[in-house]
């Protein structure tokens, strides 16, 4: 669906079903250089199984207008504005990588709106090699290639796909080269408040971490889980791009965790 946020057109995927604010809402927040399409294999299930889904493209990404936001703090505040624009008061926030840092900022700014937090392939800090940012500024294609070689685990590198006939690396690459990757990476690199914000929150949290994650290593993810007293699911044999690489297992973790919170209330 399309809506106006701060005077600019914003697109949010709704999982193939019309958004209904009366249902429990799951907010999917994409990672660096990605957009709503990285959640294609999670959003439809939620939309067709009792939830409403919002998977927005951040400004300047995919189908959303505007300039890309240059800090995680700004992206977190934008999510607050986005939820206000969508007239949503309560969400289960799901973030991949950088998207989870944005979720932390959302929760910091509007704790009352966040029923739960789910982080996928993430950590409290996501340092980015300055050379990668420089490369991204010169060529998003080259930077995407570097990231995807690191980001996808061994199975995806061998052409294994959760969706028969598809090539996740090519799909990820096409998405990345069309988005402002350099700005996102710079925002990640500059963000230093992750641990402090994580410590300050008292929201049910789970982290779904990848055994072969070379971008947000498992150790860093587990450290944040300890800080947040979060439930942890480790998916072995996959890399950083879990929502695309291991969509079914990601979905299962999200279903179980979000479902348990909904049913406990």
């Amino acid at each position, binding site marked *: 669906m399309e809506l106006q946020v701060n005077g600019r057109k914003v697109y949010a995927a709704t999982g193939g079903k019309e958004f209904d604010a009366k249902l429990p809402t799951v907010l999917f927040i994409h990672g660096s250089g990605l957009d709503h399409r990285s959640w294609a294999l999670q959003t*439809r299930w939620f939309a067709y199984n009792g939830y409403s889904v919002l998977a927005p493209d951040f400004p300047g990404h995919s189908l959303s207008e505007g300039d890309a936001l240059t800090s995680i703090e700004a992206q977190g505040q934008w999510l607050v504005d986005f939820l206000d624009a969508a007239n949503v008061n309560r969400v289960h926030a799901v973030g991949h990588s950088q998207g989870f840092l944005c979720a932390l900022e959302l929760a910091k700014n509007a704790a009352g709106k966040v029923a739960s937090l789910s982080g996928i392939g993430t950590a409290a800090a996501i340092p980015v090699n300055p050379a990668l940012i420089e490369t991204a500024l010169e060529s998003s294609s080259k930077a995407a290639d570097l990231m995807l070689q690191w980001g996808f685990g061994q199975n995806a590198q061998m*052409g294994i796909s959760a969706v028969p006939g*598809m090539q996740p690396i090519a799909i990820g690459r096409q998405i990345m080269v069309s988005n402002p990757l350099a700005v996102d990476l710079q925002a990640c690199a500059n963000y230093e408040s992750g641990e402090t914000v994580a410590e300050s929150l008292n929201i049910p949290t789970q982290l779904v971490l990848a055994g072969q994650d070379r971008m947000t290593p498992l150790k860093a993810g587990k450290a944040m889980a300890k800080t947040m007293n979060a439930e942890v699911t480790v998916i072995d044999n996959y890399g950083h791009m879990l929502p695309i690489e291991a969509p079914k297992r990601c979905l299962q973790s999200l279903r179980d965790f979000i479902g348990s919170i909904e049913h406990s209330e």
Partner: protein
Amino acid sequence: MAKSSYLKPDTIALHSGYVPESDHGSRAVPVYQTTSYVFESVSDASSLFNVEQGGHIYSRITNPTVAVLEQRIAALEGGSGAICTASGMSALFTTFITLCSAGDHIVSSAQIYGSTATLLKHTIKRLGIECSFVPINDEKALREAIQDNTKMVFCESIGNPGLEIADIPNIAKVAHEFGIPVVVDATFATPALCRPIEHGADIIVHSVTKWIGGHGVAVGGVIVDGGQLDWSASGRFPELTEPYAPFHGIKFWEEFGPSALAMKIRAESMRDVGATLSPHNAFLILQGIETLSLRMKQHVANAHTMVEWLQAQEEVTWVNHPEMESSPSHHLAPVLFPEGAGSMLCFGVVGGRAGGAAFINALQLASNLANVGDSRTLVLHPGSTTHSRLTPEDMIAAGISEDMIRVSVGIEDIKDIKADFQRGFKAASRIAGEG
């Protein structure tokens, strides 16, 4: 450029799409000879049917063995996904009907395979889809042929049998100005020699029956989605951008982006038309694809030798190969086919049509048959066979003459191929002498 893998092509051809399965550790890709797949639960079945997750439902739609081949070819071509079909022709038909509806229009190269020409000129016309044929490298003609309802530009990377190289970068430049995709039948080249997506093409079609299989034992086809085109930009493709009723109003472009076309083909055409590649044929094609680049190197080397040798034979009246300077598109070969422009060649022999027939009948090693791309050398007289349904005018437009002999140069020892052809030349000479 849509890279699908960071492995090198020779490694992709052997490994991509499969790692040894956990139950038995089978090193080779197993043949999943099954029609259907047990669902974990009713809700699991429901979510598969509603495209909420990937997986297998029924082998008309997907099959694990076929999927390995699809993913391997997608990786070799640099595409976002691939759909295998029962034949190269069904791959073309599926592509056409996925993107075109009644009232739509296609611009096609005039120099294409005879059955494809028939499909475009007659069969899909009955469905209300019109086609204009143009000299594909004539930019003015191409521009003038594109209409408001045009949905694609179609060509073969190397035309059959005229062997004209399509100027893919320029064709793509023109087509993309109008927001329409370029569909390339790249059968004659295979991804070992040319990857059209890297040159701007959007959709690649192969008859995998030919060089990709190489053994001549299994018929099959494939469609590769390049994943690069913005299907919404031109407003010409409501099939992909507007709600699709059979799947609760799914919008393929919004939901799947770079794999929108492949997902649509899977969801619609494989379901409704069902031109499915059998798992056993997929397994056979996989055996061939493992050695694709090695075979193509030898095909090209033998073709180069034959071109040179044929030009020196007094019974040969003319020779055509895409890399020959006499070919109007030869300048494109180093750009698009740096490893060689395939192993198809054509020539004429003394004695005209009868001489050509005598040549073919005298051969003992090369096979006279309606196929190309076997590891074995194959010959054919197109005017009597594959292109016999064309009018004389269409034959000329397709680059065919009555005396043309089409050769798919195999990977036998070159000396044996030459010796066999010498038998044919003697027979043709006798006919010419009688004339």
